[in-house]
């Protein structure tokens, strides 16, 4: 699958600490630290938003200020000081960019280091990239091709200006601002994100992709993504993340909302590689994300995620299976090393008849990390013939790390069939011996076995991502042998 050879890997392992830990010096316009009603208003004003949007944000802020930070997750960390964060940071730029030449060369260099050269993307890959650097979308490519099909793919701030009726209709319907602490915070202060609308019956011809980066020191990233797939449409959406090295913990509280109308299908893939902190557990990103999708009749939402980064991950991509015959899927690999902590999983809420859901979760813990699966399968009393299959496998490397499983199963219908299995194991001595015998050294053997362990999930990723994800897995487990 990959041209990436083992020698490349070794070289990489030797040379790099955190590959993407660089800092681009772009003159940023950053608000003073702290959060109050005025800051929310100012963000809204900055974005030139209509009145309803400002009101929406203010309402969310009001809700947020009454909420308390949740503590139920199986993670320990120093809580972020919410008044010490700057809530808006945008690269100072010319207001409008029509072609790539107008993009700041420094920024372009940044992308180059990230390996997503725009030119190359444009020429080779069949991917439209909506690049977000510190919350403001800088360039949107392939807009034209998509435009011909009637597909709207643009930064959400622009969508609020250009398609207010669509945004207003759907924003906050799946994840209401009052949903949880971080969703409320995001609703109040989100700076930008992506908006995607696929019209009736349209199959999106290419993978839509957004690359996020946190750039400016001390700023939080509050992304808002809204994907609406109208009746009978299909879209595959990719999201990838990298962040520069920082000593202080950075907060990332994103909200992703997916709406799959009748007969529509959304495939949402994530490769998350935020800075995990160094080997002493210093620094790293706090990733507190709310992701949820709503399925109408016959619709399907499929979440695939590869989580290798972040000091703390707190993320539960969920599906509300509202319509009859709708399908929800969740495929996840979560790798934790050193002092990382991950509490991740999914929620499958079965409301409609004949709804199906599949959960495959693979957790790999190494070093001194803690990896938790937390999931909910809920079958309501009206969900006749609902079917769920869950499988959570954990792989432990060493006895300083931990793997935890917290599945919640709530069934109120007798025709439901729910299965849950979980196993925990380590890499078998015999497997390693077999590889060693054949001249594969232990480090590579582990990479091989881990890849096999994760294959069920890796297979669900689009090709380009699968290659990147495989690479990430290997790098993340660097030095965990023994």
């Amino acid at each position, binding site marked *: 699958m990959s041209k990436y050879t083992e020698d490349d890997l070794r070289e990489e392992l030797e040379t790099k600490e955190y590959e993407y830990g660089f800092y681009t010096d772009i003159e940023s316009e950053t608000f003073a630290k702290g959060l109050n009603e005025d800051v929310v208003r100012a963000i809204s004003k900055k974005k030139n938003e209509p009145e309803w949007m400002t009101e929406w944000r203010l309402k969310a802020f009001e809700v947020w200020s009454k909420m308390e930070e949740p503590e*139920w997750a199986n993670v320990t960390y120093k809580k972020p000081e919410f008044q010490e964060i700057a809530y808006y940071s945008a690269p100072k730029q010319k207001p409008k960019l029509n072609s790539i030449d107008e993009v700041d060369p420094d920024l372009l260099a940044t992308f180059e280091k990230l390996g997503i050269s725009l030119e190359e993307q444009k020429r080779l890959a069949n991917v439209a990239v909506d690049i977000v650097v510190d919350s403001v979308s800088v360039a949107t490519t392939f807009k034209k091709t998509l435009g011909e099909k009637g597909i709207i793919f643009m930064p959400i701030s622009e969508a609020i200006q250009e398609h207010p009726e669509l945004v207003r209709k759907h924003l906050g319907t799946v994840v209401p601002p009052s949903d949880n602490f971080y969703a409320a915070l995001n609703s109040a202060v989100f700076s930008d994100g992506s908006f995607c609308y696929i019209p009736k019956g349209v199959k999106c011809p290419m993978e839509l992709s957004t690359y996020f980066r946190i750039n400016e020191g001390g700023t939080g990233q509050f992304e808002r993504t809204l994907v609406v797939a109208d009746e009978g449409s299909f879209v595959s959406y990719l999201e990838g993340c990298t962040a520069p090295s920082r000593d202080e913990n950075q907060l990332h509280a994103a909200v992703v909302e997916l709406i799959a109308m009748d007969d529509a299908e959304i495939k949402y893939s994530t490769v998350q590689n935020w800075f995990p902190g160094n080997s002493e557990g210093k620094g790293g990103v706090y990733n507190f994300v709310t992701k949820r999708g709503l399925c109408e009749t016959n619709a399907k939402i499929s979440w695939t995620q590869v989580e290798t980064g972040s000091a703390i991950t707190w993320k539960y991509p969920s599906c509300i299976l509202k319509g009859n015959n709708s399908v929800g899927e969740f495929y996840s690999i979560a790798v934790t090393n050193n002092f990382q902590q991950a509490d991740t999983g999914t929620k499958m809420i079965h409301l409609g008849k004949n709804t199906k859901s599949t959960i495959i979760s693979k957790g790999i813990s190494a070093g001194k990390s803690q990896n938790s699966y937390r999931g909910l399968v809920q*079958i309501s*009393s009206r969900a006749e013939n609902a079917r769920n299959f869950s499988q959570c496998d*954990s792989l*432990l*490397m*060493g*006895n*300083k*790390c*931990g*793997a*935890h*499983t*917290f*599945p*919640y*199963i*709530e*069934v*109120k*219908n*007798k*025709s*439901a*069939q*729910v*299965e*849950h*299995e*979980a*196993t*925990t*194991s*380590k890499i078998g001595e015999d497997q390693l011996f077999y590889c060693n015998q054949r001249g594969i050294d232990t480090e590579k053997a582990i990479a091989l076995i881990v890849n096999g362990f994760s294959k069920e999930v890796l297979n669900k990723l689009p090709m380009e991502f699968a290659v990147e994800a495989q690479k990430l897995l290997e790098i993340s487990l660097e030095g965990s042998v023994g």
Partner: protein
Amino acid sequence: MDLKEKIVSSYVAFEDGVNINSDIHEIRTEAFQNFEKLGFPSKKLEAWKYTSLNSILKEDYSIFPDKEKSITLAEVKKYFIHDIDTYKIVFIDGKYSSFLSETTHDNIDVCLMSSALSKKKYKLVIENYFNKIAKQDNLTSLNTAFSKEGAYIHIPKNTEVEKPIQIINFTTGEESATMLQPRNLIVADKNAHVQIIERHQSLTSNAALTNVVTEIFADRHSTVDLYKIQNDNIAASLVDNTFVEQQSNSVVSVHTFSFGGNITRNNLNFFQKGEHIDSILKGITIIEGKQHVDHHTLVHHIEPNCESHQDYKGIYDERSTGVFNGKVIVEKEAQKTNAYQKNNNILMNNKSTINAKPQLEIFADDVKCSHGCTIGQLDEQALFYMQQRGIPKKEAKALLMYAFANTVLESVKVPEVKERIMKLIATKLKVNIGFNI
């Protein structure tokens, strides 16, 4: 006055009846303060997310039933496993009934907690074991605060108890609502072997709430089998807190058969303090109406080379609710642990609910741990097959349910207990099958 206030204010009265200058009373007082601080558990607590006690806490319980009622053996014979010879420790409204009991001090001690707590002879055992593993949570603290009476069983080393021991608590219903807090202690010394049957039975339809704590200590190479038969009437609720500490090479199994009662909560905790330990936790739950059964288990693997086996089956009809919350913790020293957890459920009705939460917390890498949880129906094809061969639907269904529950039944080592459970299942399923499994 709510129940908590009532309990708190009655503590002074309780103190009148016990020796307040003993070490035990210090433990009680500390537990009392703890309960005073914590109060009753609410649904806000993660451990009580699916079970609300509110409906049963409203009753005006009499905390020290003072009306005494004697009951004849004929009235209650059916609640005993009466077809074999057994030791019996029987309490009526929390008070020891010497007439119905059969205790012993012949080598083994099968007697009363009240005498164990007060007599010098038992001082060492009480000092070593009493309240050593019971958690400091709300209801256990409440029980500890009022601990006074219950069963005391001590089996010295290299002894095999020749017949099972029955512990039965009757509630007569003389008071309109009764609250009981039995406290049991079971100590099996090295290479001791014992089988115990425990039952709580209310004799009228007046409300009853039992908050029982049982501590079990199994020393090296010992075996303890505990069978809990829960088939109380619908006005009776039970919170059962059982704590088991095992040393190397011991085998402890706890079977819980929950067929009756209003709200039944079983907190079952195992702590493995040695190597090569086997812990067995099994249960069958068959309920209907508005009954609620909650199994809350914990197995704490602390040392290497141990095993635990959990197998819980549930059949839920009408508006009943079942909860299974199983937790396995494997500490980083506990390498080579094998921990298995299985929970299978059948819902018979769309108004019935099952909430399952099988958890694993694992810190060691060389372990085999698995849990499986299923919720489904009886196999339509198997039903059809039997009906084709002339077995009526009701019986065919019952047969399948027997088969479903059989993995739990087959490890019951006392044949008479097994037979009794089979009969209870037949009554619950409203069938009469003339066969033996």
